[in-house]
């Protein structure tokens, strides 16, 4: 039995496609992470956004943003990865925190700012989804094992039907990428390709990026 995806009560969630993660000058690059592996999610995300627009599906962007002095960083920043503070990752108001120019939200798209991996924890996402009567969430973005997976775990526990687009997500390490997709498929989501999502939405893109 396959969990079916359609266009009804469905939203696309584009997770953290920001300069910080996906551009050479971003802070992840500064920390020495292979940012190209995250940028690899960009064409898939562009395709997903274009398809969602065509199918009339709302697009929701998430954006990782910390206060300039990282007073909102907590255990994750203060103790686990203090490097984030040293480089000023995704600090409020900086180029680093901005969503990629190629995926720039349109006026009516929702942008959910967060300072934790999950887009559900202490954000406006859930009330927005309830108001919009959304039941199905399609996820793309970065990083597969961190913010995408934490958000998907939270979404599924809240009984949203979750779909993760395997060729529109990115992670810096192969083993974590593989296990993240395996884990989400095991108990939290259906893992699909962009092609399969487009078919489910009955959308064709003429000029595929």
């Amino acid at each position, binding site marked *: *039995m396959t*969990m079916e995806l359609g266009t009804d009560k469905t939203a696309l969630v584009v997770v953290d496609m920001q300069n910080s993660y996906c551009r050479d000058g971003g802070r992840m690059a500064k920390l020495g992470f292979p940012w190209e592996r995250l940028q690899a999610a960009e064409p898939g995300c562009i395709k997903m956004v274009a398809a969602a627009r065509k199918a009339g599906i709302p697009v929701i962007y998430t954006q990782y943003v910390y206060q300039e002095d990282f007073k909102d960083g*907590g*255990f*994750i920043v203060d*103790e*686990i*990865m*203090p490097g984030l503070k040293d480089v000023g990752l995704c600090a409020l108001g900086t180029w680093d925190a901005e969503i990629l120019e190629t995926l720039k939200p349109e006026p009516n798209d929702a942008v959910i700012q967060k300072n*934790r*991996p*999950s887009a559900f*924890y202490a954000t406006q996402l859930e009330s927005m989804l309830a108001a919009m009567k959304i039941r199905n969430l399609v996820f793309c973005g970065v990083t597969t*094992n*961190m913010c995408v997976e*934490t958000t998907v*775990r*939270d979404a*599924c*526990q*809240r*009984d*949203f*039907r*979750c779909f993760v687009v395997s060729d529109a997500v990115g992670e810096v390490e192969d*083993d*974590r990428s*593989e*296990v*993240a997709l*395996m*884990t989400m498929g*095991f*108990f*939290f*989501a*259906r893992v699909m390709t962009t092609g399969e999502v487009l078919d489910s939405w009955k959308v064709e893109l003429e000029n595929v990026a």
Partner: protein
Amino acid sequence: MTIELGKENCALIVVDMQNGFLEPKGSMGQLGFDTGKLAAATPGVQRLVAGARKAKVPVFWTRYVYEPDFRDGGVQVEEIMPMLKDVNLCVQGTWDAEIHEDMAPEKGDVIIDKNRPSSFYATRLESYLRAQGIENIVVCGVTTNICVETTVRDASQRSYRTFVVRDAVGEVDDFRHETSLKAMEYLFARVMSVNDVLDSWGVELSNAA
């Protein structure tokens, strides 16, 4: 820089050490999962619980519990893993849902029932932790990649200093076990051994299991 653990403001959380997960004739065993790999967490959990008693660290037990008709199962039961229903996984009031007799919850321990992987989502756990001024959480139990990891992600995001005990958690698949520990260590927790934890608490067990 090591993330230090002490016994002040510390709690031990023992996740889902139930017959359904640990016993070969339990529901996970009936589904063909290798419960031996989950039961392997038992000696470590026993030592942590004994250490916590000595150090006067409060112990919280979580139990996965579903309604007999699974009306609380949601997407995970209805669509992702319908076979959980076929084997009556952890149904309220059954042997399957009971904490395994090798564990020893005592009067005064808090038992948190949940019907989702996270011990935080829609449970009473956080109110107890707040009321008791808990800032540090040591997590053990099963399964590493699902309920332990989902709980750890949630604890860390809530800025609890979070510690996972490598030799007191268990998963049915070795690759998922190892990579899950790696993912938790990457952004959510410090991974320690049982001995490290006991040392940090300043306790010695006379008859180490």
